[in-house]
């Protein structure tokens, strides 16, 4: 059975708690991902910031009545405008402290269960608390299907 280290994306893209939210919006948009790890200056994961957290910060009243997952960055310029109006809001005010780090030795099946159970699209991979990559649901499902067909 494959392990996290076999399927993870070895990318360390992350932000710190002092990163302005508008920078986070740009990173998510340019990279086409829905969330990234928040780290300290030792690259230790301290949280997670996602589109959902940004939407919550921009449209708190909307989130109360709608599912924020359906709000997307189809009009990035309006989102950035709103963020500019908010001033230099920081990641630390909006990040999720509830995040789901996994280690490289965890099995792919276990991380699949974790992601499905908690409806997660990406989770950080850590070694001694330090970020070493991410597992993405898209690549995970591909690997699991491949393994399933082999068995």
């Amino acid at each position: 059975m494959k392990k996290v280290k076999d399927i993870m994306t070895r990318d360390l893209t992350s932000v710190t708690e002092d990163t302005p939210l508008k920078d986070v919006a740009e990173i998510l948009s340019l990279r086409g991902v829905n969330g990234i790890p928040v780290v300290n200056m030792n690259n230790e994961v301290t949280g997670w910031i996602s589109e959902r957290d940004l939407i919550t910060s921009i449209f708190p009243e909307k989130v109360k009545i709608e599912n924020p997952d359906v709000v997307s960055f189809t009009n990035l310029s309006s989102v950035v405008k709103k963020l500019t109006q908010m001033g230099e809001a920081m990641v630390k005010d909006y990040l999720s402290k509830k995040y789901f780090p996994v280690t490289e030795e965890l099995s792919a099946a276990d991380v699949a269960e974790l992601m499905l159970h908690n409806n997660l699209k990406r989770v950080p991979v850590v070694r001694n608390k330090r970020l070493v990559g991410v597992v993405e649901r898209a690549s995970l499902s591909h690997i699991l299907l491949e393994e399933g067909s082999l068995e």
Partner: protein
Amino acid sequence: MIVTVTLNPAYDHLLFLHGIDVGQLNRTHSTLQMPGGKGVNVASSLAILGEEVVATGFLGGQGSRIFEESLRKLGVTTNFLYTNKEIRTDFYVIEEEQNRQTLFVEEGATIELRYLNNFKSIFERLLSSARIIEIGGSLPQGVHPAFVKELIQLANKKKIPVVLNIQEQILKECMEGTSLFIVNPDLRGCETILGKNICEAGMIRQVARELTGKGAEIAILNSHSFEYTVASKDEVWEGEIESGPTPNKLGVRDSFLAGFIHNYLIMRNLGEALKYGLGVALSTARNKMNYPNSKKEAEELRLMAKVRKVG
């Protein structure tokens, strides 16, 4: 882990032809695309040699995701900062029958100031687990040698050895007031370095010594893709390897550096590291990509290298 910094990476396009007819229609018989830039080339080679390596720098535009994915497939961890500008594309025209390579290099996009500050934050975070930093290649518009010097000083503060694999002009500015582990000036297209004509016999040896006198622990100079001089304060070595026809020299000098670093960190012996670097360089020349075919092949080829202590 080893961190390589490439501030001006390029998406390299290789066009293979039997021969080029200037001013006429030329059809390639094969093409290749791969991530490039000096630091990126070093990272790819280090990964093939089994090192844990993180590549960082600036990326941007449509090719960036494929660029990173290609590096990760080699085992390189990526940590690039995306800007809102497209990265440059370099073209290598390789005429196999002529054993000749022609290079067209773009200047690169302008990097805005805000990205420089964000990059510094990424770099400082990487320092927390780096055992060596390699900074390689040209600078994009908007990035000045003073910025590279600032990165070196941040590494110096944490006592992390720095390898500089850059043009002489940047090197000269960065060497003042900093501590450097290895300097490997890019001599492509140069006839002089430190005001000395490197075509004159014995001059490369003299310049290598001079660079160690200016504070570098080790200086590496090459007069040819397969001929190198390495010097420390105490000794100077020269070495070469018989390459045969090698029309594609893409990444050869950078893979030499990767091989040298990899071996020197283990053996702490200039002569052995020189030999190892030559083996890695030749394995890269035999590969169409900008990294060695394999660690095994590089280690076999190093047995062909001829090295001697000359001072």
